[in-house]
């Protein structure tokens, strides 16, 4: 078992407030790592630093190192564009491109990056929709607007869209929090399938979800990584008091 990504002394601050205060952590390859913690604990901020989304927030400042394989992704000699094709992201609210068809949503990024043309694009559409378990539902209406899909379908389309640039890692920021229970169930099933081929890090506020889908769990509190371990160990036998307090529902 090897680590796919890791952070060393990662700090993220917005102006004067520090949201992530020096985190060392590994994300294991081919597994699902859940990041849990109360609101404002820095879990989303941490996740977003793994594909440099903070580049677009003017006041955000990231220090420390984030490794993908053995490369520090904040090294200015590496291309952030290529990084983002390797580390994909799925957001809290389904956000398909509203003016595009289902097909265009998926082909948009591969076209921009010059990854594929013509038939290859069609193959990407089919492959990613099959992977995201959406193919059977939409194969007859690929040219319909993506906004016509249900919330759960939209979120699976967003996953397909992220897969279209052949990432190695998928970051998911509370991907099911805006969905109803049955759509949530399908996303969780999908995560289970996807971890065979991808490394996944998922932020969730739902501890049952973390317990169900993840192999490893990290508990964040006040910008610090309090505890990290195998999910079953962390939930049944937490080492830290704060972890225990949180998972037994005494705060947060």
């Amino acid at each position, binding site marked *: 078992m090897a680590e796919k990504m890791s952070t060393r002394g990662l700090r993220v601050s917005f102006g004067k407030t520090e949201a992530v205060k020096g985190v060392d952590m590994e994300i294991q390859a081919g597994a699902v790592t859940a990041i849990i913690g109360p609101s404002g604990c820095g879990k989303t901020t941490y996740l977003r630093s793994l594909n440099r989304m903070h580049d677009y927030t003017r006041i955000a400042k990231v220090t420390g190192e984030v490794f993908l394989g053995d490369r520090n992704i904040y090294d200015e000699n590496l291309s952030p564009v290529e990084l983002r094709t390797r580390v994909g992201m799925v957001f809290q609210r389904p956000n398909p491109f509203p003016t595009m068809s289902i097909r265009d949503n998926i082909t948009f990024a591969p076209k921009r990056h010059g990854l594929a043309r013509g038939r290859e694009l069609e193959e990407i559409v089919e492959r990613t929709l099959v992977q995201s378990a959406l193919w059977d539902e939409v194969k007859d209406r690929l040219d319909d*607007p993506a906004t016509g899909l249900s919330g759960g379908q939209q979120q699976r389309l967003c996953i397909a869209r992220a897969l279209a640039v052949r990432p190695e890692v998928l970051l998911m920021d509370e991907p099911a929090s805006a969905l109803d229970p049955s759509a949530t169930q399908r996303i969780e099933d999908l995560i289970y399938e996807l971890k065979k081929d991808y490394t996944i890090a998922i932020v969730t506020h739902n501890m049952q979800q973390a317990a169900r889908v993840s192999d490893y769990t990290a508990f964040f509190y006040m910008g610090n990584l309090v505890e990290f371990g195998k999910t079953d160990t962390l939930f049944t036998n937490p080492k830290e008091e704060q972890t225990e307090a949180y998972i037994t529902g005494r705060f947060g």
Partner: protein
Amino acid sequence: MSSRVEQAPLRLRVRLARDRLLVGLCVVALALAIIPLIWVLWEVVAVGTSHLSVEFFTTLPEPPTRGGGGWAHAMVGSAVVVGIAVAMGIPVGVGTGIYMSEYGNNPLGRTTRFLCEVMAGLPSIVAGIVAYGLIVVTMGRFSAFAGGVALAVLFVPIVAITTQEALQMIPRHQREASLALGVAEAPTTLRVILPAAMGNVLTGIMIATARVAGETAPLLFTAFNSRYWMEGIDQPTATIPVNIYAYAISPFEHWHAQAWAGALVLVAAVLLLNVAARTLWARRARFMAGG
């Protein structure tokens, strides 16, 4: 409120009467605004149609003593001057709006935003003075181009502000969806954000076009006037609004009638643009809500 309950009925009656009086006054106020509108439109339509003819759209003016003649040259002139303003104004206005919305969290963005607000309130005649001083005096003659520039100065801030507002209505997560895929800023804005905001951007452009198409003051000493077909954008040209003014203050009855006909053409064009812009927007809003 009075603590003496026995007085309440009388007081209450007074209070309720005053409440009804308020409604009455408000209705009167609305009437005071709508009556002039209807009156103006009625005069324009009634007097204007009676002097409108095919000739009015196809021929050049005749000397006032002769009668007849048309404003074809002014219609072409208006189209060209407004066309110049729109052609220059759309890229600058939309581009500025994009900058203010997407990248404007810095001194340049804040300065631009402030100046757009200021320029949106600029007395239109000031735009004319500036184009006169910078272009007419420099070139040594009145020109359609100078008129177009003066109108563009009025056009750009409106479009920039509406574009900015339209883009800001697109949620942040739409941008992130594209940026997280490693897509650069240009395609993210031009292919994801701008299309989503297109309805409102177009509405802004159409309303701004309608606004400058009716402007007269900035053209008085830039595009000036002419009795002939326009000979080039570096030459003075007639426009509908300036012609309305010139004909209205002339001493000739026949010209007064033509001023009304011209007003009808102008009002029809401007209101049509406004109504089209608003229905476009309403359709769009319904579509978004339904989808």
